[in-house]
């Protein structure tokens, strides 16, 4: 389980995360929903240790974050963090060199599935292809958890469908996924749990199916309540 306990983060005077606590279970797909600036990306970066918290703590399977995080949790940021001069093949070679839990077989399968050309340079990739390569890097690591920052935003429909199909594939099975989005739209059925963020605080944290069972509300309905009120 990935746990944020009263996580607080300030950038100068602006408080981005305000005593935020939430959990994401292994084997479930948890979705952080909130408008831009709600602190979604910051929380993911905090979980990955890419930015320090001003207060509170992140625990992964009970242990505070440390170097071991990176073999347990894969992170797919909103942009592809690879030097532009590298080719797709180089990037795979790079991941293979540094990650002992790199699954080369799965990487090459994904290359085929995502129809990526190994000799393309990172700088020449379309936004969709870059997002897919980015996802490939994350998913090809045998990790318990995968964090994805806005995996669907701003890319073509076809790529978006391909990425969505990943969520229902064996790639995700058994793994804990946290993804962020600011418009839930067509992926409502893909997620197990929704966490609604606003100004760095958790407004609502609920299991989608239980919400449907108990209150017959879709995630979007809850969002309307939370963000309109």
């Amino acid at each position, binding site marked *: 389980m990935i746990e944020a306990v009263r996580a607080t983060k300030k950038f100068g005077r602006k408080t981005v995360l305000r005593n935020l606590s939430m959990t994401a279970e292994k084997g479930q797909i948890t979705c952080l929903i909130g408008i831009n600036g709600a602190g979604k990306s910051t929380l993911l*970066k905090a979980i990955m*240790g890419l930015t320090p918290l001003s207060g509170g703590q992140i625990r992964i399977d009970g242990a505070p974050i440390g170097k071991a995080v990176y073999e347990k949790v894969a992170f797919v940021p909103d942009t592809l963090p690879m030097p532009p001069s590298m080719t797709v093949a180089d990037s795979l070679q790079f991941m293979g060199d540094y990650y002992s839990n790199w699954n080369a077989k799965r990487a090459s399968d994904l290359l085929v599935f995502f129809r990526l050309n190994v000799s393309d340079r990172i700088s020449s990739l379309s936004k969709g292809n870059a997002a897919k390569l980015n996802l490939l890097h994350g998913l090809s690591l045998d990790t318990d958890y995968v964090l994805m920052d806005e995996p669907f935003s701003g890319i073509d429909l076809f790529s978006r469908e391909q990425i969505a199909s990943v969520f229902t594939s064996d790639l995700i099975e058994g793994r804990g996924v946290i993804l962020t989005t600011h418009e839930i739209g067509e992926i409502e059925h893909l997620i197990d749990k929704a966490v609604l963020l606003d100004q760095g605080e958790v407004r609502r944290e609920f299991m989608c199916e239980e919400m449907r069972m108990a209150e017959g509300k879709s995630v979007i309905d809850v969002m309307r309540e939370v963000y309109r009120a």
Partner: protein
Amino acid sequence: MNRYLKLVVMELHRFWKIYAALMLLTFLSQFGGLFLTLRSYLTEVKGRMYAESLYDYAAYAEKHGPESFYTMTSRMEPWFTAPVLLCIAALLFYVFMIWYRDWFGKNPFVYRMLMLPTSRMNLYWAKLTAIMVFVLGLVGWQLVLFPLHMALYRSMLPAELAVTQSVESFIHHHSVFQTLIPQTFTEFVLYYGAGLMTVTVLFTSVLIERSYRFKGIAGGLVYAAASLFAMLAPQLVNDGIGFELYPWETFLLLVVIGAVLLALSLGISRYLLIRKITV
């Protein structure tokens, strides 16, 4: 360990194009400049021999004296030392760029670097090693070029006008090279040890800035200034309050201060990299 080596190889590879350019530029500027200078000197000599009706080089040498390799290089300034200074400036600039380049661009490579499943200090050691390799590589390159230049000098100049000088003697008397390539290996280790310490201080300043963005810049500058002051302290003590330090005491003090600064810089960098750095 091998992750550290892989990172070093990567850091070296990322800069090799500029590095090769620096080496080539140094060669062309020095070797080419020397060739042109030698040629114009020879025409000058022939002209004078004709004007003063001196029949052979020996007579000329008798009258005007030979021209040593050392004076030939000073004739061709700035083409001899300018490339060296350019290389130093480039490497000094790269001490900062080796970090900042990871933060640039729409896909900041630093995300991936900070997520590598290895101690972040490996990133630090790899970049430090890369800088030192670049510096020592250029020193080695210059040491290889000297005999080459001297060979050109001996081949183009008639024996009567030439003065044989050793590379070591040339370096020992040259204002720029005597500091870059000191007399004894002990000093070489001390000089470049101080250089290493300076790089760690600069790295620490960069990391302070990268960790505390707003006040980070000030923090970084203050740290660098404090380190510089610490290194100058023994000299200030000597000139200032008259408590005179004997040479070996000053030397010892400098070594101790340098070691402390090195340890401090590494400690702070470690803390910042693991705890405070932010993307």
